[in-house]
């Protein structure tokens, strides 16, 4: 591994002490100095970052790379390439693989594949209940000791509130964070779009906003009862935001994230049964979209994730309700974040904090900030117009409604633990 100097980049470093134009010195994968070469680098490679934004590598709170078990859809290798092309250096790995990640051995397997691929770092989330059955709590402490960063039941329902309470209590005792996907499945009732104008018009079974917000309310109140560190995943409607805001004002320390695509589309995009817009939770009304954009600009929702879900072609080749949900969006996560800045939804510093220091803080990991002594996970971004064309997609999943979109920024280099893992050529 070469020593590196990133010269004259404009450092955007939310939560860090240093920002503005600086040189960064990297040795053995560690940032050893900013503007000062403390140990005399050994014939370093110099990266000219003049006129570039230099920021911490992105921390993505939810990805599915499909391995093990669903390699026909995607692999850790293919999706890691896509991730680093968007500046992502740490991914949170969801446990709904085949088999499900509910044992220490499964965690180690995933970590080992990431080490072999050697592009970005992984934090594995393990299953909150055994086999994701929503009924028997998993061996949480064993999973934590094996490296699980948090526990989640993904989209699978928890049997009842008593199981959720017990899971939260047990996790709380061992200081384990729970990532909770709020959805009341009785109310969702096999729906596939937001219950509203479009579900009505297209005759597609709808999921009311209340299916999410009722689950949010239950989870918030149970987190107060149990003291668990609760993170709410993929918020999509304005009632949930109101509840989270209210929780914050009464001192309940719940955190929340939103999927990047939820900041760009509402239910109207589904018109004409376009399967690329089949996501979970569904795209909601234009009022919900406006409220989510407002909540992300404040401190109500502190993180944005890709919610990357690659599929092979067959998964989307069916009538809307029979097609698989999800978007393979990781490789445009950063360009889309910059688009939010261009749209004046957030300032640059806030926008970058949503994918770096804030998610790192939610996970309780020492990354997401550029500082002396920390791991050299860095993204360098250039202003440049480009079009996201189908032929350029690195992910195995081509299920992406952003294909054909013009962007004004692109990732120029990604550095993970001091190694250049992506270069735009």
């Amino acid at each position, binding site marked *: 591994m070469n020593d590196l100097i990133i010269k004259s980049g404009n450092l955007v470093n939310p939560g860090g002490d240093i920002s503005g134009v600086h040189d960064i010195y990297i040795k053995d994968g560690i940032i050893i100095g900013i503007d000062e070469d403390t140990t005399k680098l050994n014939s370093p490679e110099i990266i000219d970052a003049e006129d570039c934004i230099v920021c911490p590598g992105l921390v993505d709170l939810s990805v599915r790379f499909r391995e093990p078990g669903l390699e026909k859809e995607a692999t850790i290798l293919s999706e890691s390439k896509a991730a680093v092309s968007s500046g992502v250096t740490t991914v949170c790995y969801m446990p709904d693989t085949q088999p499900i990640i509910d044992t220490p051995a499964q965690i180690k397997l995933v970590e080992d594949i990431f080490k072999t691929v050697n592009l970005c770092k992984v934090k594995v989330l393990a299953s909150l209940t055994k086999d994701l059955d929503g009924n028997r709590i998993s061996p949480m402490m064993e999973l934590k000791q094996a490296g699980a960063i948090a526990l989640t039941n993904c989209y699978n329902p928890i049997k009842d509130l008593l199981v959720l309470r017990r899971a939260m209590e047990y996790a709380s005792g061992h200081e384990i964070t729970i990532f909770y996907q709020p959805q009341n499945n009785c109310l969702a009732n096999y729906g596939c779009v937001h*219950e*509203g*104008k479009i*579900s*009505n*018009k*297209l*005759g*597609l*079974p*709808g999921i*009311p906003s209340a299916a999410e917000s009722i689950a949010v309310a239950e989870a918030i109140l149970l987190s107060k009862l149990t003291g668990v560190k609760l993170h709410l995943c993929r918020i999509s409607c304005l009632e949930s935001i109101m509840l989270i805001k209210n929780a914050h004002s009464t001192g309940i320390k719940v955190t929340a994230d939103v999927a990047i695509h939820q900041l760009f589309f509402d239910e109207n995009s589904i018109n*004409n*049964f376009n399967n690329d817009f089949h996501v979970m939770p569904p795209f909601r009304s234009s009022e919900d979209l406006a409220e989510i954009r407002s909540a992300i600009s404040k401190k109500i929702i502190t993180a944005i994730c890709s919610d990357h879900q690659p599929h092979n072609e*067959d998964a989307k*080749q*069916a*009538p*809307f*309700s*029979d097609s698989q949900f999800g978007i393979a969006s990781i490789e445009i996560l950063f360009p889309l974040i910059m688009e939010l800045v261009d749209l004046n939804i957030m300032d640059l510093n806030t926008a970058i904090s949503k994918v770096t220091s804030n998610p790192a803080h939610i996970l309780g990991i020492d990354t997401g900030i550029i500082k002396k002594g920390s791991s050299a996970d860095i993204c360098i971004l250039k202003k440049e117009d480009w079009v996201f064309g189908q032929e350029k997609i690195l992910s195995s999943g081509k299920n992406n409604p952003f294909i054909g979109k013009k962007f004004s920024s692109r990732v120029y280099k990604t550095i993970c633990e001091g190694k250049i893992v992506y270069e735009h050529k």
Partner: protein
Amino acid sequence: MSENIEIGLDQNIKQSDIVSQKHLRHFLDIENLPKSLILDILDLAESFAGVSGQPVKKVPLLRGKTIVNLFFEASTRTRTTFELAAKRLSADFLNINMDYSATRKGETLLDTLRNLEAMHCDMFIVRHPSSGAAEFISKNVSQNISIINAGDGRHAHPTQAMLDIFTIRKYFPDFKKIKVAIVGDILHSRVARSLMHALRILEVPDIRVIGPKTLLPNGVEHMGVTSYVDMDEGIKGCDVVIMLRLQNERMNSSFIPDEHEYYNLYGFSPKRLDLISKKGIVMHPGPVNRGVEISSEVADGDRSVILQQVSNGIAVRMAILSLSMQP
């Protein structure tokens, strides 16, 4: 015969729906059809209506063409009227009843299509339990094949809506002067959705939907209709009342308490005839649940046009088939 029909093109129509002034590419939905085209289809159907009364019930319009009924869901009326319509147009006709659960397990919908395409058919008439299935199929078949939507999930049943408005026009030639009510399970009804579009496009000034709140979609007013929970208030002064079939499975999933209460609140009983306009008619797309959504006296009475709807179905479907067949 279709060669003599001039179909006006509207600015709003989707390009994909129409290939020329005289042909539809597919017939999937009513929502985007221009008013002039809907009226042209009705006029053409009018000219076909006489064919069924002739000693030789055939016209040679689609001779040499092959039409396939591709039904992934059970149907009697729609399937047979399409079959008769195709045969009266002299087309070769094939009925394929797909077991939807079997296709779900193994062969995908696309595989099924590819196989049928390989048999060089010209048109598929598709019924499928998933909303958007006809649209999906139309995007995935080769250029020379037309798709007719015979009902997709809860989304659309455009030929049923066309035959309903054809029947209405027989009694009320001026759509701009009538009040129409649709009663029953609006939430799950593809017929209701297509009818709401058709009536709106034809500028019917007063369109009402009536049912318990569990069976009225949230925000149905976006479709340009007024909703009523009280049937007596809703049908008052209406010229056309379209009763929808109540599907039995709804009873067991807490949409309604029981048949008895449903009939009392939303069943078309003889005394409710007094509430509609003097010349008002009662319609039903079939099959009828007698004593649940409509009494036998009304269904078989002189205000009912239920059987005319069935016969009109053949002429209207002949018109749609002939306009949608690629040259």
